[in-house]
């Protein structure tokens, strides 16, 4: 009798484990930042998309697990491994984003391009293959997006695409983010240009990426019901107007039955983020509204000692355009502020310099705030 009782407890625990585990937004950003012609544009894209992914996770109450593959890590095998190693729960979301060169073979059957992850033909990875691979892991919702540039378009003004604000999630926007990302299942597959077209890379970022982010911002901050088809259509119109190329997309999205979790006042980050660096996870824990307030304050000194070379290490916060420094403070003041903030939702580390002990001497980041 006792055995049956304990077996039942175990069974119930197993059944509920899936629903109790926090939903995760798995993000993979692949950016060809070292390319001499488009590298600067891709770097901007990688930053802006990382910010957006963190904002989506924060607004939807997901854990964020965002990995960026760029610079020395930029390779076919690393992208392949990142996709293969995804551990995706049935309620999780996956957002794969690529910015770099792309192309297609004459006999390519898919409308979608191949991503140039190296200099040889064997290092070209078809976008649809990535979509298939991610689909095989059965996430609740997946987005596979590519902004493939094979030419730099000079002299184009992107003033109407400038993302010059801080990232601030208003109360109304949180609801709309959830409608678009949290309460849906299915997939979106999109690339920046149609068969045979190049894509425009501007100094501020890819024309398609900037258009998508601009339209997404309008939609989440607007009053009409968010909708993926409308979002993709408006992105397509804007990209066509600004970049002179036409995105391709497929939207297979439906409302899911499991509601998006409520925002808990501070997103969390799964342990492996930014290529295994747990600093961001520690930072997210410091800002988490779920944690006891005194615990957050007490964590400041240990974090300072663990991650920073000194309490006077330099920390700079940049705005959404990543050009304007909006704050500069010592690491001690920075952590104290983060530990007491009631509205910081997430961070994106733009760069960090470390000493020979691996401790941060200089940190450059962007902050995402939640306004309610």
């Amino acid at each position: 009798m006792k055995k049956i009782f304990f077996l039942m407890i175990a069974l119930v625990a197993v059944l509920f484990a899936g629903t109790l585990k926090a939903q995760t937004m798995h993000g993979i950003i692949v950016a060809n930042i070292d390319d001499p012609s488009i590298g600067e544009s891709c770097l901007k894209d990688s930053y802006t998309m990382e910010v957006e992914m963190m904002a989506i996770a924060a607004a939807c109450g997901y854990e964020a697990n965002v990995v960026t593959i760029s610079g020395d890590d930029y390779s076919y095998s690393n992208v392949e491994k990142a996709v293969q190693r995804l551990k995706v729960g049935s309620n999780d979301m996956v957002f794969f984003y690529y910015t770099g060169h792309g192309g297609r073979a004459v006999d390519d059957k898919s409308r979608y391009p191949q991503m140039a992850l190296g200099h040889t033909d064997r290092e070209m990875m078809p976008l649809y293959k990535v979509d298939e691979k991610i689909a095989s892991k059965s996430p609740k919702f997946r987005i596979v997006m590519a902004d493939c540039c094979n030419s730099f378009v000079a002299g184009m003004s992107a003033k109407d695409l400038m993302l010059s604000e801080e990232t601030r999630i208003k109360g109304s926007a949180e609801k709309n983010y959830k409608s678009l990302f949290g309460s849906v299942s299915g997939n979106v597959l999109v690339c920046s240009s149609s068969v045979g077209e190049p894509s425009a890379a501007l100094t501020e970022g890819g024309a398609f990426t900037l258009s998508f982010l601009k339209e997404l911002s309008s939609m989440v901050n607007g009053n009409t019901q968010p909708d993926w088809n409308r979002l993709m259509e408006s992105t397509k119109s804007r990209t066509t107007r600004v970049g002179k190329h036409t995105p391709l997309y497929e939207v297979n999205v439906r409302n899911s039955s499991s509601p998006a979790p409520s925002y808990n006042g501070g997103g969390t980050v799964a342990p492996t983020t930014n290529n295994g660096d747990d600093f961001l996870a520690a930072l997210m824990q410091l800002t988490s509204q779920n944690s006891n307030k005194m615990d957050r304050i007490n964590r400041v000194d240990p974090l300072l000692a663990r991650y920073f070379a000194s309490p006077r290490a330099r920390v700079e916060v940049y705005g959404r355009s990543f050009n304007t420094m909006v704050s500069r403070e010592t690491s001690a003041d920075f952590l104290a502020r983060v530990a007491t903030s009631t509205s910081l939702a997430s961070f994106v580390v733009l760069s960090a310099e470390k000493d020979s002990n691996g401790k941060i001497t200089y940190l450059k980041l962007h902050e995402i705030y939640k306004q309610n």
Partner: protein
Amino acid sequence: MKKYLLLLFIAFAGTFAVQAQESDNLSEPEIEELRERTIQLITDFQGYLTEIGNKSNSESMKDYYIKSALHLFMGNGDSYYIDGRYHDPVIMEVSSLRNGITTVRPKPMKQYLQNLKRLRYTSVRIEKAETVRISNIYKVGDHYEGTAIFFQYFEGKQGERTVYRDKTKKAVKIYVVREDDDWGTHWNVKFGDIKVEETTAG
């Protein structure tokens, strides 16, 4: 030759003067991003007030929040200089509405925060509106100034009984000033005096 050198010197001096002046000015995109930063800091400040007034927080925790709050203000709550001119410590205007009459009193920010910490209610509730309005930022001498408006709800209870509640609209002076630190000079957003614009029954 001397005249030529003198002219050349004047030409270069003019160039450097212009360049120095240019680096003293913020561009429009920079101003826009600093305005957004201001809204974030106001949101933080309102959060600090909620925690300082929260009766369930310990004294030491409240002191931590007070320190964070003062850090947002010119002079960290002490007297300060702007454009070479002396200013008294930043003040917070406090209002109370009784029998339809509003009384407004200015208090130095440090004193205000200490008073907030020690309010004689059994529970205090401070809520903020999501809406924050910020004016343009205007150049004044060697710095920039603006104003922001935010809204606050205050409720004080003794046990279950609400003793006092009101809603206030407050205006805060914004300064964007150049600050020196270990790595040079940078622009920073700081707050000045906070004025009560309107008080209504809660």
